[in-house]
Each structure stands twice: as structure tokens, then as C-alpha cells.
């Protein structure tokens, strides 16, 4: 996976299990894209709106239309299905007051809330609109790239499948037509990509592999890249294990014993993590980009460092090193 290849699309979905760091990866991809001069926006869906906070911006204040520039060339938006629906109605209905009436009508609100999958359709529709070279929203400036900070895996696939579902159920009429257009964009690999994010643990790897299978089987979409987040740097070499264990068995004083026990556990964890990264690589048929475990809270500096690592092909923590400070 090269970053250039990833960022050559207009629409990039970030998928993965809850807690694997999708938002961090979306922000890092956004930074890399903005660094190349691409006008980029990161779209949080399903109530996610964490990017402004990561960039140290006041999370409450929001710009016009929800789009908000965080640093030059990089914006964020929290997709709101209700607002997306109002936008859509205004775009579709020639008479403004009728659109206003509809969107403010409680009846219509009920229907919209009650129709299964409509929220997903409106969400993905808005994301698609952001990625259009000619925006449909009056006064909207086009973006070169939209990175979608998606919902956790299960709903992520549902999100991508929503347009096709509606195209099929509605069969004709504008919704069916628009949904079919959006679906065609989603399955066009030059236009849209899905990046899988995992952690080096069994649960996250299983879930990502399963997502890959579902995307391929249900929608014919291939993951265009895989990133493993939070991989501990390799500190201990193969033969260290027995030496550490031998020293531990040697009745060291308590303080030293504790440190040795921690070292043995870290060595064990490194092995598990490497095995999981390997299993993921085998499952997806390519080497994932590895991003390191970060102890500090993620802020702009940390994001920049991660984005530089991503550009360089990921963390190289696969050699044992001394790390003397």
C-alpha cells in the first residue's frame, strides 16, 4: 500500500472495530493529503465529531454548513442526517417553501426516522455530495478528497450498502436514481476506497478480516489498504526470552524481579502482536502499514509524527534495539 495510491481517490472510508483508532487514522490520512496540497475534509459519521478536538479547536463551535477548516487545506464535518435531508429536499424540490414545510413537518420527521436505513442513506449521500467535483450545495467548494471516519465495523458495511438497498427497494423515482448513482461511485475503485484499521490483537484482526469478506461478498469492494495501529516497538530478541526467564528464576531482589517480570510479559506481548500482524497480512494478501503504540494522548504533534511515519511506509519497529536513552 502506498500513500499516493490511497490518496488518489476522492472518497476514502476508514473501517475497523470499535476502539482501534479509526479517528486517529482518518486524521493522519487527512494530514497527509493536505500536505500534498489536496483540499481535504474528514467527515465524522454516526455522531462522531472528534477531529476538531484532536486539532485543539473548540469542539462546540461549528462553521457554516458544518464544514470547518482546521488547518489550511484540511477541514472537518460531522455528518448530520437531518441536515442532509433538508439539503436534499431543497435540492430536489423546486419550490423552497414546500421543502421547508416538508422538513419541518413532524409527520415527515417520523417517517424519515422510522424508515429503516434512511439515516444511513442520507449520511452516505452527504459524504458523496462532498466528494463531487461540482457540489450540489449552493456555494459549496469542491474537495479533492473526503476521508470518512466511519462507524464501527458492522454498521460500516450497512452504510456502504444503504444506497444499493434503496435503489432496489424504490425501483424508480429520484431516490432510486440517486441511490443507484451513489452506489455506482462507491463500487468504482478509482473513485472510492475502504481502508481497514486494526490493532494487533485477535479480536480486531478477526473483525477486520470478516469485514473484508463481507465487503467483497456483499458489495464487490476490496480493501484498498490496511493499517495496524498501536503496535508496540520490538524491544526483545528471540533469545532474550530464555535469558530473562533464567534471571527471574534466580531469586532476584523484589524490585529487579518486578522489572524482569514486566520484561517477560512485554516479550510475550510483542510475540502475540507480531503473530497477529502476520495473520492479518496473510488474510488480506498484503503487508499492513504498522503505526506505533503511543502512550501520550493524541494531539496535533502526535498526528504529524504519525503522518510522517505513514508516508515512510509505517513503523520499522521489527528489529530489536537497545533503546538506551
Amino acid at each position, binding site marked *: 500500500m502506498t500513500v499516493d495510491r490511497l490518496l488518489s481517490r476522492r472518497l476514502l472510508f476508514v473501517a475497523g472495530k470499535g476502539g482501534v483508532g479509526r479517528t486517529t487514522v482518518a486524521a493522519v490520512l487527512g494530514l497527509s493529503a493536505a500536505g500534498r496540497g489536496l483540499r481535504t475534509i474528514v467527515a465524522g459519521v454516526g455522531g462522531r465529531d*472528534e477531529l476538531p478536538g484532536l486539532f485543539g479547536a473548540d469542539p462546540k463551535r461549528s462553521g457554516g454548513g458544518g464544514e470547518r477548516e482546521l488547518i489550511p487545506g484540511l477541514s472537518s464535518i460531522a455528518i448530520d442526517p437531518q441536515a442532509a435531508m433538508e439539503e436534499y429536499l431543497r435540492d430536489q424540490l423546486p419550490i423552497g417553501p414546500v421543502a421547508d414545510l416538508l422538513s419541518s413537518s413532524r409527520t415527515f420527521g417520523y417517517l424519515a426516522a422510522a424508515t429503516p436505513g434512511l439515516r444511513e442513506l442520507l449520511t452516505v449521500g452527504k459524504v458523496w455530495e462532498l466528494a463531487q467535483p461540482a457540489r450540489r450545495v449552493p456555494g459549496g467548494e469542491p474537495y479533492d478528497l473526503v476521508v470518512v471516519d466511519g462507524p464501527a465495523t458492522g454498521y460500516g458495511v450497512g452504510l456502504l450498502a444503504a444506497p444499493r438497498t434503496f435503489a432496489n427497494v424504490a425501483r424508480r423515482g429520484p431516490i432510486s436514481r440517486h441511490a443507484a448513482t451513489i452506489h455506482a461511485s462507491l463500487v468504482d475503485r478509482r473513485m472510492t476506497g475502504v481502508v481497514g484499521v486494526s490493532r494487533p490483537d485477535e479480536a480486531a484482526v478477526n473483525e477486520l478480516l470478516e469485514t473484508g469478506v463481507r465487503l467483497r461478498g456483499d458489495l464487490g469492494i476490496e480493501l484498498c489498504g490496511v493499517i495496524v495501529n498501536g503496535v508496540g516497538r520490538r524491544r526483545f530478541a528471540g533469545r532474550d526470552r530464555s535469558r530473562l526467564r533464567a534471571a527471574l528464576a534466580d531469586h532476584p531482589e523484589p524490585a529487579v524481579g518486578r522489572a524482569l517480570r514486566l520484561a517477560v510479559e*512485554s516479550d510475550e506481548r510483542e510475540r502475540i502482536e507480531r503473530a497477529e500482524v502476520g495473520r492479518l497480512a496473510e488474510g488480506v494478501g498484503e503487508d499492513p502499514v504498522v503505526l506505533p503504540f503511543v502512550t501520550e494522548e493524541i494531539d496535533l504533534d502526535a498526528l504529524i509524527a504519525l503522518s510522517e511515519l505513514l508516508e515512510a511506509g509505517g513503523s520499522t519497529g521489527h528489529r530489536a534495539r537497545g533503546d538506551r536513552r
Partner: protein
Amino acid sequence: MSSPGTGGVEADATGDLGRLLERRRICICVGPGGVGKTTTAAAIGLELAAGGRKVALITIDPARRLAGTLGLDELDNEPRLVDRRRLAAGGVDCRGELWAMMLDPKQTFDELVARLAPDARAREEVLGNRIYRELSSAVAGSQEFTAIAKLYELDREGEYEAIVLDTPPSRNALDFIQAPANLTNFLEGRALGALLAPTSLASRIVGRGTGAIFGILRRLTGIDLLGEVGDFFGALSGMLEGFGERAAGVAGLLRDPGTAVVLVSSAEGRPIDESIAFARELDRAGMRLTGVVVNRMHLDGGDASDPERVEAALAERLGGRLAGRVAANLRDFQVLAERDRAGAQRLGRELGDPPIVYVPGLGGEVDEIAGLARVGSYLFGAAAGGRG
């Protein structure tokens, strides 16, 4: 930075789930995604069963590894008994029974429809409707609803002395709490009813009857979509009362004094923020937290050791390079332990100091019964020499 191990634990746990769950029939594990909810729920179920109760564990288990751990070929939508000998092989002397199931939202929904349908025709009409098929599978909310519907079902059957529910990862506690109400609103068909009734608010505003608004919608949606929605509500009409009763029962169950709500988090910044928001929503919804579990804590073990002294003490035995790595690993651990301590303190403070139980990260071990039992020993206060 590497992610060091967890060390021998001297947990400063203040909670003991065993005591907190003593008189509870139901234990619901809630919390943000990726914090180990499934493992925590399984460990609670195992401990309760070991203590002598007949337990049903309802899990979501997206990674499908729990089935293997419990020695079941596959977890399906009906509870299966975990073999006592398998538990014994993992060092667990189980005096009760552990039954486990994995929630299948679609099947649970189908069963519900089958139970509530007045006759076979109505049942087939609903099950065959495309809107229904969409609703009952991947759509957000259906998993939350079916999880509590199943819980309600098992509780009413009265077969089990304790039911432990692992919930789907939602960002929003309200998704879960409101799932029954949202679904009832939907199923009661208020939307469509209001739309079609000549006296509806919308039609009065438009002033030209429902025809106008219906016409606009028809143009927008294509008539087939509306047709399907209409058929769906028509087919469901005979079951609405049953759904309504059920939703009311479920809502009551969530606030029942016999129901414990355990918030599961990890000590990292974002899960803590999400957990705090989660707890506030629960509070607003009138649900009281029974206790909090903080997973993957870097608990003690290294605090008392000075990295430089450790390095010096090991230099001769291990050589300078390896001794240096052991010391660097220790330093990393101390940073993480400090971070976790601060995070856990913040969580406790923000939640008004509920009982909190800390569980260290246990690596790959939780894939085995013995690993689950070890988690359980932290949860139930048996770890670290009975402290906490």
C-alpha cells in the same frame, strides 16, 4: 514506545462485583467499543456460575472467539450449556451452570414476529416484506433492540437464576435505552398513520389534504417504496399491541432493582471520555450504575523499582544491552501506569465515585477458561490476596 506487560498486581480495587451482584437477577455490561466488554461479561457469567447459580450469558462476540473458549462449536441464538469438565480443566470448579448464546438479531426478530403474529398469513407477510428484511438485519438499532428483547424473553421464561448481557458497542447509551421506545414508535406506524389520516397536522398545514404531501413524497421516493412501507404497516397492525407491551416490559426491566448495570471502560483517554458521557446519559434516563470495570490497567508492579538501579543490578547477569532494555521497558510501564491511574481517578471523580474494579491487561490469555477465570478473580475481588 513498546507496550509493556502488566506485572504482579497489587490492585487498589475498591469494588467487588461478587458482592454488588449478589442479589441481582440481571447484569447488563455497557460501555464504548473496544474495551473488552465481551470478555468482562463472559468472566462475570463464569464467576456467577462457579458460585452456584444457573447463568445465561448473552453475548455479541463479534470476533467469534468466545465460542471456542467455551468449547462450543458455535454459539447460536439459544443458550447452550458449557461442559462442566471443560471449566474444570481450566481450573474452575463450577457449582452452578453456565449457558451461553450469541445474539442473532435477525433470528430474534423473526422469532418475535412469529410469536406475536395473529396467524400464519400475517407472519409470512411480515417476514417476506422487503422493508422488514432491511429493518431486521444490519440497520442501526436493531441489534440493540433485539439484545434487550432476548434478555426480556429469557427473564420471563424464568429458567435462569442470573442473566449476563454483553451489549453491542454503541457510542450512545441512549441508542440502547431508547431502542424499545424507538422501535415501538416505528412499529406503531405513527408516521404513516399521521400521513394518511385526513386530519393530520401536515395535511392541515398544506391545506390541500394529504394528497399533496403524499404526492411530493411519492415523487421523491418512488411509489414502490411507499407501497412497501404501507404493506409492512398493514401486515404488522395485528401485532402492534404485543410489541408495545413488550417494549414497556423491557423498559421496566432496565430500571428494575434486580437489574445491575456495569459500565466497562479502559483507562485510555478516549474510552474514559466516552464512558463519562455514557454514564451521564444512563443517569438522565433514570438508570443507576451498579459498578464500573476499568480494563487493561497497567497496575503497579513496577512503581517501586528504580530503572537505573534495575539496570545496574542486571548489567552483569544479562549484559548491558539487555539490562538496558529491561530498564527502558520498566520506564515505559511506569509512564503507562501513571497515565492509567490518572485516567481511572478522573473517571471515578466524574461519575461520583461509584465502586470501581480494575483489571490488568492479560494479553492472549483470555482466550482460555483459565484466562477468563483470572479476569473473574479481579472482578470478584479474589485476586491480589483478597484485597479490594
